[in-house]
Structure formats: C-alpha cells, structure tokens
C-alpha cells in the first residue's frame, strides 16, 4: 500500500459485510492512502462510533485527524476533494460530465439500491417479484448510463479510468455476486446488460477492489443465514 503524507490520520469505522464500506475502502485504495480500519460490531455500538456520529449512528464513518465524515457517497467525495494530489480525480474535469456522474451516483442509491432492498422487505411474493423487476430495470438504466459515460473505450463509467460511478456501483459488486449465488437473481447479466457484466469482471480484477471487498465465501454464508431467518422464497422469474 502506498504511503501518503496524512495517511496516519485516517481511520475507517465499518462493518465488514457492508457495500458502503467497500466504496470507502476502494476509494482510499485508489488514492493510495493509508488508513486504520476498525471493525464495528453492529449489535454493540461502540463508544468511538457514537462519539463521532451522534446524529446518524450509522457506519461507515471516515475519521480524518479525528474529524468524522459519514455517508459513503459523501466520504468518497471527501476523499477525492481532500486529497487532490493523491492520484487522479474521481470526477471528470468537464462541469456537465461531473453533473452526469453525480446524477448516476445518486441513481444507484435512490433507485437500484432501494428496489433491491425491497426484494427482501416483505413476505408478499408478488411485492418481492415487483421489487426484482424494478431492480433489473434500474440495472438496465445503468447499462445505458455506462454507454453514455464510458466513451470509446467502454471500460469504466469514469471514461479514461475508474471514476465516481465505478466506485459507487462497485461497492455493490460483492452483493451482486452473493445475490446470484444465493438466490439466482442476476442484477447484471451478460445477456441483458453485457457492458455491465464485462465491467463487473473488470472491477473484480482490480487490486484496489480486491483489497476492498470482503471474502465472498463469508459473505455468502452470512447471506444464506439471513435468508433462512426471513424464510425467503425466490420470486419466480418472468
């Protein structure tokens, strides 16, 4: 891991399985920043967490010289803005292109993730099936976004290199893999969303991503336990 001047002052509080944590760790890795990671047991909120995040009590939290930043997308933006000398910017230079990146960053959480959570929200199978449809529709929209943002190379949302939307969506990649293995739902699919499917493989091959993602087998085990607890039945696909 490369060292940067203020690396000693960076601390991340998180839960190992969280996609939001993956975003933060991936961003730090991309910038080559050193940080200390502190695992937080969600069942026992620890003192450091409550002190640094009294309003939301959520994780992940980035502490920079003791000052807390919460909300994964805000943390990623902060990392980009506070360390401009550490590697390329996550956002493009063009003002309109920046707005497009922020728009899709918001879309991932507001549409893709919210539909995704709906898949497991109730016992009603029809509602769950509808949530699956909406999740896949959101992924289809992101396929279009990828084509719009990635330029000629068709490699990253960021165009020439990894960018903001790659980081935001990238956090969900481990969860996508688990969803497919545990329940057979493919958020990205070589047939339906070929560009995103190739992007996902490309993402997983990055050293920075490997260092940020939790072990798949542990995540899968975790997911299977959760699905059993809620007696989840895979919605029939149409």
């Amino acid at each position, binding site marked *: 891991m490369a060292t940067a001047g203020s690396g000693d002052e960076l601390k991340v509080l998180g839960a190992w399985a969280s996609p939001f944590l993956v975003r933060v760790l991936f961003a730090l890795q991309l910038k080559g920043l050193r940080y200390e990671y502190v695992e937080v047991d969600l069942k026992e909120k620890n003192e450091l967490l409550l002190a640094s995040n009294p*309003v939301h009590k959520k994780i992940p939290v980035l502490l920079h010289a003791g*000052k807390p*930043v919460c909300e994964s997308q*805000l943390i990623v933006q902060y990392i980009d*803005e506070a360390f401009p000398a550490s590697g390329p910017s996550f956002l493009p*230079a063009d003002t*309109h292109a920046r*707005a497009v990146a922020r*728009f899709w960053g*918001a879309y991932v959480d507001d549409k893709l993730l919210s539909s995704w959570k709906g898949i497991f929200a109730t016992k009603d199978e029809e509602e769950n099936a509808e949530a699956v449809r909406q999740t896949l529709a959101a992924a289809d929209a992101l396929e279009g976004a990828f084509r719009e943002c990635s330029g000629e190379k068709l490699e990253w949302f960021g165009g020439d290199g990894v960018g903001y939307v790659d980081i935001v969506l990238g956090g969900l990649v481990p969860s996508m893999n688990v969803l497919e293995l545990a329940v057979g739902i493919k958020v990205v699919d070589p047939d339906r969303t070929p560009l995103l499917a190739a992007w996902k493989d490309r993402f997983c091959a990055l050293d920075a991503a490997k260092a940020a993602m939790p072990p798949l087998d542990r995540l899968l085990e975790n997911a299977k336990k959760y699905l059993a607890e809620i007696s989840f039945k895979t919605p029939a696909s149409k």
Partner: protein
Amino acid sequence: MDHGGEYAPDEKVELLGTWSSPYVFKVIWALTMKGVEYEYVEEDLRNKSGALLSLNPLHKKVPVLVYRGKPVAESDVIVEFIDEAWKDRGGGGRILPEDPYERAMARSWVIFARDVLSPPIWKWFTAPGEEEQEGAREAAVAQLLVLEEELGRKEFFAGDCVGLVDLSLGALAYVIPIYEEITGTRIVTEERLPCLSAWMGRFLSSPPAKDHLPPLEKLKLSFLGERTL
C-alpha cells in the same frame, strides 16, 4: 463538447419546473445567487411536454436545467452544477464552501434535511388522528432542535450569507407556517426554537429568496387538497 472552464455569461439557460415544487425553488434561488439569467418553463405534470420527456427520460421529473442544450436533472446535482459552472459569478459567493471538510458537512445537512427531518414533518401534517399528529409533531421538533443547535447564533447556516444548507431547508420557511395554519398546531415557536424561528424570516427576505417565492395562498389551497386525500 468538453468544457473545463467557466461558461460565458450570455449563454442561454432554461429551467423546466412547476410553481409548487420546493426543489424547483431551490434551483431558482441558486441561479439568483449567481445572477444567472434563465428562461423558466412551467410544466404540467399531468401532461408532460415532449421537451421534459426527452430531457429527463429516466425520471420525467422537474426541475431540469438546460444549458447549451445539455440537461441536468436532480435538484442537488443541479445546485452543485450551478455553483461550478458560474464559479465566480454573483455577489452571493459560493453556494458550497471551499474547504473539503466544510463541503462534506454541508452535504450531510442536506441529507439530514431530506431523510431525517422531512419525514416527521410530513407525518405531522398528514396524520389522521390527534394522537398520531402529536407524536409526529414531537418527533419533528426533536430534529428541529438539532438544526437549532447547528444554526446557533449564525445569520444563516452557511454564515453571513445564504449557502447550500439554507437553500435545502429554505422551503420549510414558507411551508411550515402554512402547515401550522392548516393543522392548528405549531412546530416552530420562538420559545422553543428562537434561532430557527428568526432564520425563517431572515431567509424569506434574503437576496436569493425575497423575489422568488411561490404564491402562498395558492400553495395553501393545494396543501389543503393533499391533506384530505
């Protein structure tokens, strides 16, 4: 076409919106802070124009800002775009702070306003029974007290001038009094929330907002309609 620098001041700006949307007004206030001239297009959301559908095909919502033929959607995204596109314009200064940590803090308050403060306010306004209304009212006041502490003795959340957080909370300055009138209950009183109470009046008469507010009587009627649904 790539454009990395500031835009020339005489290029056409168009804003698609609806008269009652607080998100549209947030954008209008941002444009006003920067002294940007724009053409406003009122959309009928029950009969969306071809322009709206092609400029924001994904969400089909307002506000949409169009500049040099390129659309920007989502009010928070639009406000940051305005701040960057007209970086040094307007006596109103920067909408977001320069310092990265201050920027992160301002953005977190925007999330707070949307995710933590707005739901109990909406619940209080739409509660069907007195008990539920009282519960929601107390929940809303609890979050307003958090804002009160954040504001403290400052003129505005951003300091001496209006900034991002003020713009994001601004609609509450005219919505809360209307909700109070309709429900017959108060959530912002001078006794409990003195700083916030003063801020509301100050925001409504601030340079970005004072000539750019929705028609309040018309708004009250539309809220009355929403409440009985």
